[in-house]
C-alpha cells in the first residue's frame, strides 16, 4: 500500500513538472520593456548598449527557466527577481539614452531639412532669372522631391531613413550649386568686371561730351537703362537670349552680345512689336569670332550671325539673343532714342546684384 502511494505521488509530481512555471512580475515587465526598446529602435540608435542589455536579459531569462524547471518546493525566485530588476534598471537607462540620442538626431534632421529647403529655394530663384537655369532646375526639382520625402519620413519618426535621404540630397544640391557657379563664372572675374565697367564709363563719357541719350544694358540685373550724362533717365526690365548671360560669339548660340553698339535702324513694326536694330557684329565681335574660329571653338560652317534687336514682346520672353521689353516700355524707349544712339551691353555693373552676392566667394 505504501509503495502504491509512493508511486502515485511520483506520478503526480511528474505531471506537475510538465506544467508551465509561474512567471515573476519583473520578468513580464522586462519582456514589455525589451519590446518597447525594439520599437524605439534601440538596436540601431545604441547598438552596443542594447547588445549588453540583451546579454543580461538573456541571462535573467535563463535563470528564470532554471528555477521553473525545479520541483515546486525547490524554486527560489530571489536571484531571478534581482536579475530582472537589474535588467529593468539597465533598460530604463538605455531607454533614456535612446530618447536623448533620438532627440539630438531629430533636432539635427529638422535643422538639415530647414537648411536644404532654404538652399533649394535660394538656388531656384536665380534659375528663374538665368535662362541657362533649365538643367539646374531639373536637378533642383529632383532635390525638392527628395526633400519632401525626407520630411515625410521625419514626420513618421523614421529618422534613419530621413537621414539617408538627406545624405543623398547633399550631393544633388552641390551639383546644382556648381552648375550655377559655372554659369556665373565670368561674373566673378575681376578683370572681366573691370572691362564691363570701362565700357559703361566710356559710354557715359560719350553721353556727357555729346549731350546725347545712351542705352546701358546690364544682363544679370535684367535691366535696360537710359542715361544722359550721369543722369539716369529711366530703367526697364528685360528678357534675354536662352544663353543670355553668355557673350555672343556666333549665330544660333542664343547668347546676348556684350560690347559697345549703336542703333542702326528703328522698326515701328516687326515680328516682335517695335524694334531697334543694333550693329552687331562690330569690329570687336568679328575679331573674337575669328580668334575662336581659328582655335576650333566654333562649329564648322557657322557664321557670326546678326539681326540683334531691342524689341517688344515682354520682359519675360526668352529670345534667340535679342533684348526684349514689355510693349509699353518699348513705346517709351522707341520715342527716346534715335538711329545712332549708343547701346552698351555688359554682364553687370552692379556690385549689389542679389544673385552675385548670394554666390560670391563660394
Amino acid at each position, binding site marked *: 500500500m505504501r*509503495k*502504491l502511494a509512493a*508511486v502515485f505521488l*511520483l*506520478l503526480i509530481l*511528474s*505531471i506537475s*513538472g*510538465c506544467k*508551465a*512555471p509561474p512567471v515573476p512580475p519583473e520578468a513580464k515587465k522586462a*519582456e514589455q520593456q*525589451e*519590446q518597447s526598446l*525594439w*520599437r524605439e529602435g534601440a538596436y540601431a540608435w545604441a547598438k552596443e548598449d542594447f547588445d549588453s542589455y540583451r546579454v543580461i536579459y*538573456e541571462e535573467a*531569462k*535563463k535563470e528564470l*527557466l*532554471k528555477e521553473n*524547471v525545479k520541483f515546486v518546493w525547490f524554486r527560489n525566485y530571489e536571484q531571478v527577481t534581482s536579475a530582472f530588476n537589474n535588467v529593468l534598471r539597465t533598460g530604463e537607462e538605455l531607454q533614456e539614452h535612446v530618447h536623448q540620442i533620438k532627440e539630438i538626431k531629430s533636432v539635427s534632421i529638422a535643422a538639415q531639412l530647414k537648411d536644404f529647403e532654404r538652399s533649394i529655394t535660394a538656388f531656384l530663384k536665380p*534659375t*528663374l*532669372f538665368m*535662362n541657362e*537655369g*533649365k*538643367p539646374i*532646375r*531639373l*536637378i*533642383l*526639382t*529632383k532635390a*525638392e*522631391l527628395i526633400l*519632401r*520625402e525626407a520630411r*515625410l*519620413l521625419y514626420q513618421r519618426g523614421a529618422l534613419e531613413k530621413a537621414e539617408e535621404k538627406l545624405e543623398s540630397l547633399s550631393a544633388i544640391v552641390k551639383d546644382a550649386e556648381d552648375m550655377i557657379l559655372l554659369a556665373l563664372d565670368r561674373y566673378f572675374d575681376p578683370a572681366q568686371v573691370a572691362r564691363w565697367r570701362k565700357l559703361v564709363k566710356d559710354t557715359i563719357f560719350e553721353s556727357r561730351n555729346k549731350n546725347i541719350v545712351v542705352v546701358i544694358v546690364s544682363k544679370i540685373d535684367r535691366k535696360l537703362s537710359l542715361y544722359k550724362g550721369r543722369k539716369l533717365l529711366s530703367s526697364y526690365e528685360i*528678357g534675354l537670349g536662352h544663353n543670355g548671360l553668355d557673350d555672343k560669339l556666333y549665330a544660333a548660340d542664343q547668347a546676348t552680345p556684350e560690347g559697345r553698339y549703336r542703333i542702326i535702324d528703328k522698326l515701328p513694326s516687326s*515680328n*516682335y512689336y517695335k524694334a531697334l536694330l543694333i550693329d552687331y557684329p562690330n569690329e570687336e565681335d568679328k575679331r573674337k569670332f575669328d580668334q575662336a574660329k581659328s582655335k576650333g571653338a566654333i562649329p564648322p560652317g557657322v557664321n557670326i550671325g546678326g539681326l540683334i534687336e531691342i524689341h*517688344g*514682346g*515682354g520682359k*519675360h*520672353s*526668352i*529670345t*534667340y539673343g535679342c533684348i*526684349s521689353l514689355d510693349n509699353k516700355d518699348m513705346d517709351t524707349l522707341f520715342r527716346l532714342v534715335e538711329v545712332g544712339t549708343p547701346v552698351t551691353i555688359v554682364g553687370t555693373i552692379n556690385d549689389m546684384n542679389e544673385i552675385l552676392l548670394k554666390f560670391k566667394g563660394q
Partner: protein
Amino acid sequence: MKNISRFLVLFTMVSLVFSGCSKKPVQEMNDAEAAISAIVKAGAEIYAQEELIKLNNDLAAAKNQLDIQDKKLIKKYGATREMLAKIAADASALKLTVVTRKEEAKNNALSAQIEAKAALDEAKALLERAPIGKGARADLEAFKADLKALESSLAEVQQSIDSEDYLGAQDRARTIQEKASGISSQIQQAMQKVKSK
C-alpha cells in the same frame, strides 16, 4: 508476484509519462524557424516589424528552454514543444497579415502613382495651353524643366513598385503629385496675369 506485476504496470505508466516529455522537439524547432523565415521572406521586416520581433523573442526563449533541458538527466520538452507549436502557428497567422498589409501598400502605391500621373498630365496640358506669346516665357520654360524632372521621377516610382518598395513608391508619388499640383496653380496664375494685361 502480485506486487511485482503492480510495480511493473506503474513503472510502465511513469515511463510513458516521462517519455512523452523527453523526445527532443527537433522537428518543431525546424517548423518554427521555417515559419519565421517564410514571413521574413514575405516582407514581415517592413509590414509586421513588431510582431516579427515578438516571434523572434519567443523563439529565442524556446531555444533557451531547449538548452536547459538538453543539459538535464531527466529531460522534459513539453513546455518547449508547446512554445514552438505556438510560434509556428503565430507565424502562419502573421503571414496572412503580412501579405494583406503588403497588398494594401501595393494598392496604395499604385493609386498614388495614378494620382501623380494625373496631376502631372494636367500640369503638362495646362502648360501647352499657356499663351506664351512671342518666343518663350522664362517662367513657363522653367515649369517645363520642372515637369521634365517630375516625369523622370515618376519613372522611378515604377521602379520602386517593381522592386516591391511600396512605401517608398507611395512617398515619391505623393511628392510628385504635390509638386505637379503646385506647378499647375502657378501656370494658372501666370495665365491669369497674361489675360488681365
